[in-house]
């Protein structure tokens, strides 16, 4: 609080002489003063985030016979990797592969369908293009739960029950509304002049899509890739209802099945939870900036 008085005089100065150079000029006004209350809050939230993660990792390294009655906050006395071994020998690789296939297919379908759709929604002036946009705007609120019963009927009629395609198609459809909103949002920023310049060069509307719109929409497209991949990665309801055998089982459903499989073997269960997080955590370590910026795009940049 005592620091409050320090920066103020120069604020006034810098406002009077906006061209003030050098180290005094920083990006954010609020970044200059420490805020003890916020600091306290952030440490508190750090505990909320860290404690469960710590307990999870520590428990996953505990021997099964020591787990019962063991204080989850105490580090294991004799740490072991046997729980990870148990999980890896229970088809974890297969689950992971299925999930990756589903996520990749969903991303491709969403991009192939939504990019041209959003392009037309932004550029075309026809009634139909506008209606298509409004359809997806409304579609944001359709909960997937509301349609699982009829989709189950539809999927069985199409003979797709218990296959990866049964998960992929509806997951892609339900990732579309938000994807369209993100893409149209980014595409609206392309100025009319750029289209006119391309038209002067005699470009067709298709060429405009590939040489102007797609390159200018890279940010929006990467947001859509991250968003739809996460939808597929986290999807639980569609796999639960539309598959049953081991063949097309994905990671989320596999984790859920471990509950009955491992029973009271909570260390193994938590080892599977840790393992399920590792792939995305790896992506996060390698491409944090891209991931974070992409997700910020879901909220409107």
């Amino acid at each position, binding site marked *: 609080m005592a620091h409050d008085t320090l920066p103020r005089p120069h604020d006034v100065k810098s406002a009077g002489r906006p061209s003030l150079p050098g180290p005094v000029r920083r990006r*954010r006004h609020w970044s200059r003063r420490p805020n003890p209350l916020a600091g306290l809050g952030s440490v508190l939230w750090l505990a909320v985030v860290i404690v469960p993660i710590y307990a999870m990792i520590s428990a996953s390294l505990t021997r099964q016979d020591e787990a019962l009655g063991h204080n989850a906050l105490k580090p294991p006395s004799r740490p072991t990797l046997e729980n990870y071994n148990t999980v890896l020998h229970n088809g974890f690789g297969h689950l992971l592969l299925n999930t990756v296939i589903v996520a990749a297919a969903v991303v491709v379908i969403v991009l192939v369908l939504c990019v041209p759709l959003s392009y037309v929604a932004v550029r075309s002036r026809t009634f139909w293009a506008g209606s298509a946009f409004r359809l997806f705007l409304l579609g944001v609120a359709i909960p997937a739960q509301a349609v699982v019963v009829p989709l189950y009927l539809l999927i069985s009629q199409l003979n797709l029950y218990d296959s990866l395609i049964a998960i992929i198609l*509806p997951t892609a459809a339900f990732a579309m509304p938000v994807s369209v909103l993100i893409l149209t949002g980014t595409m609206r920023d392309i100025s009319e002049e750029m*289209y006119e310049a391309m038209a002067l060069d005699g*470009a067709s509307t298709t060429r405009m899509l590939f040489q102007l719109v797609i390159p200018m929409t890279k940010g929006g497209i990467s947001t859509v890739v991250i968003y739809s991949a996460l939808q597929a990665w986290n999807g639980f309801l569609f796999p639960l*209802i539309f598959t049953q055998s081991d063949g097309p089982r994905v990671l989320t459903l596999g984790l859920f099945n471990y509950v009955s499989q491992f029973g009271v073997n909570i260390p193994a269960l*938590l080892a599977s*939870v840790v393992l399920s*997080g590792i792939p995305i955590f790896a992506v*996060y370590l390698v491409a944090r900036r891209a991931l974070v910026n992409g997700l910020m795009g879901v909220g409107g940049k």
Partner: protein
Amino acid sequence: MTKSTTAVRKGRTTEGARTGRPHAVWVLPGVLFFVFFALAPMALAFYLSFTKWNGLGDPEPVGLANWEKMLHDPRLTQSLTVTVLLTVVSWAFQTVVSLLLGVWAAGRQRNRAILSAVFFVPFLLSSTAISLLFYALLDPNFGIIRHDTLGTTSGAFLAIVFVGGWQFIPFHTLIYQGGARQIPEVLYQAAAMDGAGRYRQFFSITLPQLRNTMTTSSVLMIVGSLTYFETVLILTQGGPGTDTAILPYLMYEAGFKSYDFGYASAVASFLVVAATALSLLLVRLSGFGAMRSTREGM
């Protein structure tokens, strides 16, 4: 607003008209796909709600029987109350925490950047994984809290709220951080010149400037909390009793546990009506699709 952009375009019509516009037929594959896998099933759910069907054979028309049963079902009233309560409490919890964390994280200090990177970690786990984690940590024989938290109504309810928040607050924090960084610095300089302190600035500049961000975030939160299905399934199975059976869970039980697909469809239709009404209201109040265009001026 969509309106204002069209207005702008109309002003330029004479020049713009010569520029080729893509044919509307390009929207067709996407629209058909969406209609087939999302909208048509919704209509089908409505149809099925007037039938009796156990998943095998053909659905049998039964008129309004399912709807009558539903409207007199005490579980539906309870379920609706829990769903609304869960949505409102989750929204309040997540908004307050993410708003504060987001504004805090918008500062450029090194320690804030590092902590923000840590705060994001829960979002890297799927909701299934997170529900399993807390299922284990809340286990009275094993977990952190040696108390049957999930055995009491309020404990189970708060656990669902907390677990949902634990997962989604990182994401909404990010949205608020992005929003807070777009607030023009000049506003704060002007306020400082007028002698406004930190808290005054927060309430008089930051909050009003984040109005659009708050709408976006709230829409995503409210629609998202209708889907806490796996959290409920894994943590409480709707229990104790049916105290945390939110609408989607009630529908799942009716359909895929009791094989009463007609009744499940009636509950699903009700969910669609409620969600659509809610979204229409939110779109009307906020102009969701327009958010970005209002930002363009900034």
